[in-house]
């Protein structure tokens, strides 16, 4: 149930993100989701891509500082209060979240979560009947 996310350290330099998208595009690697966390000097680009192993090798070869983090992807109806229900479970289980990012796909919405303990969180969410997507399910969207 865990999903491999790539995190890339990026200096705040013109054209850097462009280079990455081109590098991945040329190798036919698709981006499913991404988010950027930034300050004035540098940013951390978090990416979920098809063929994460290939992407990792490719980026390393191009001298990017990249590492892999396990995250989980929860699916919920795209309706008011749906996320609140999930957060409620997480809160009760005293799981702390490093960061999260979300996107909707029409009727459903997806949320990528990086908890302090991804394995345990996945178990707890499944016990509570919350839908988690596998890597393949996520790439098929």
């Amino acid at each position, binding site marked *: 149930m865990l999903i491999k*996310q790539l*995190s890339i*350290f990026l200096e705040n330099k013109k054209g850097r993100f462009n280079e990455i998208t081109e590098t991945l595009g040329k190798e036919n690697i698709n981006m499913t989701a991404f988010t950027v966390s930034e300050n004035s*000097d*540098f940013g*951390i680009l978090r990416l979920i891509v098809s063929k994460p192993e290939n992407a990792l090798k490719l980026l*390393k070869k191009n001298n990017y500082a*990249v*590492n892999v983090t396990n995250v989980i992807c929860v699916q919920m109806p795209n309706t008011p209060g749906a996320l609140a229900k999930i957060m409620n479970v997480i809160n009760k289980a005293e799981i702390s979240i490093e*960061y999260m990012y979300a996107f909707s796909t029409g009727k459903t919405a997806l949320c990528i979560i990086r908890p302090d303990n991804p394995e345990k969180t996945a178990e707890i969410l499944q016990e509570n009947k919350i839908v988690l997507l596998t890597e393949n399910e996520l790439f098929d969207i």
Partner: protein
Amino acid sequence: MIWNENAECMSRDKMRELQGIRLKRTVEKVYQNCVPYRQQMTEKGITPNDIKSIEDIAKLPFTSKKDLRDNYPFGLLCCQMSNVVRIHASSGTTGKPIVVGYTRNDLNIWNEVGARCFSAYGINRNDTVQVSYGYGLFTGGLGAHSAVETFGGTVIPISSGNTEKQIMLMHDLKTTALACTPSYALYLAEALEQSPYNRKEFKLKTGVFGAEPWTEGMRKELEDKLQIKAYDIYGLTEIIGPGVGHECRCQNGTHICEDHFYPEIVDPETGNPLPEGQTGELVFSTITKSGMPLLRFRTRDLTKLNYKKCDCGRTSVRMEKILGRCDDMLIIRGVNVFPSQIETVICEIPELEPHYLITVDRETNNLDTFEVKVEVKENHYCDEMGKMLELKKHIAHKLQNVLGILPNLKLVEPKSIQRSQGKAKRVVDNRKLK
């Protein structure tokens, strides 16, 4: 091994006596053969008769880089041009270089001191030495080359650059010792990690590094990365080139070949000699050279001297690792900063690669900006912004503790700081200072 036990283990008294005799001879020679030296001595009101022992050296005028430039190219030569067999030039950055003429005798001296260096590192005729210093006007390549030939080792005269070939030959020819600048050694170490070879397939065991100042931290880094013993070789073109001094197996100071090159430490401001053990500017007099002998040459290098006998058995004076050149010292917002201090801190932080770039600038409000760029090791980049910012703060504060001034620290991407194949450029000073 000690190459020349007679010279390297001489008693202090005998050494001073020998230095006195050789100095007197050199002073007579420059006085007779070199107009600028004679003029300077006349202005000071001294003649060769005033030099009776090595103590009298303080009576002599200094020679500076400026004197060498003013007398470019051969004004300070003390012999006929027909006796000059080779010319080298310093790697000056601006204008005309400093040119040095060598006689056959000078080359013999150079070979002798060079052989002492390599012997002190435990390198002998069974070794294969890859000389990756640049060959040419720069003294590094040819200096190390002839030294190795003198004691009968095998030389690979590959010069600098062409890194892939360096690694291939290091592997195929079973190189046991590498001679290059420490910054190029670092570059080679990285290239070696990425090469298809395994470290176990190499026979490399010793590094002979010089031509730029390097710190203890850098030594550790190089010894770990290359799995070798790394030794300093010291020299400067004006005096002879690499071979003026060398470390020994004790790695506890650089022995100076003082029967040829007499060292003094003086106050860089006043020029007054400083007592033993105090840090100041290193000054050399060549006391055996015949082509272009120099009296009391101001090296601009800052260090201190130690006259105690070394555990290796040598009695020759040792100097500490060079703190930096007086000229390398940056004055930032009134605080004195040496690049070597920054290197020391950076090498102590396990998360960092040993590469850095210092940029100093002056804003319109006359305030200096002081930026230090560092590379985080690849496996220490973290996905969490909070941890990255914490690391950045930690490094900046460590630098502040040592320097007394807080740098604007920038974490940069892997391998984005330029790697050097010769002497590293680690400081960019954009201030328009007079």
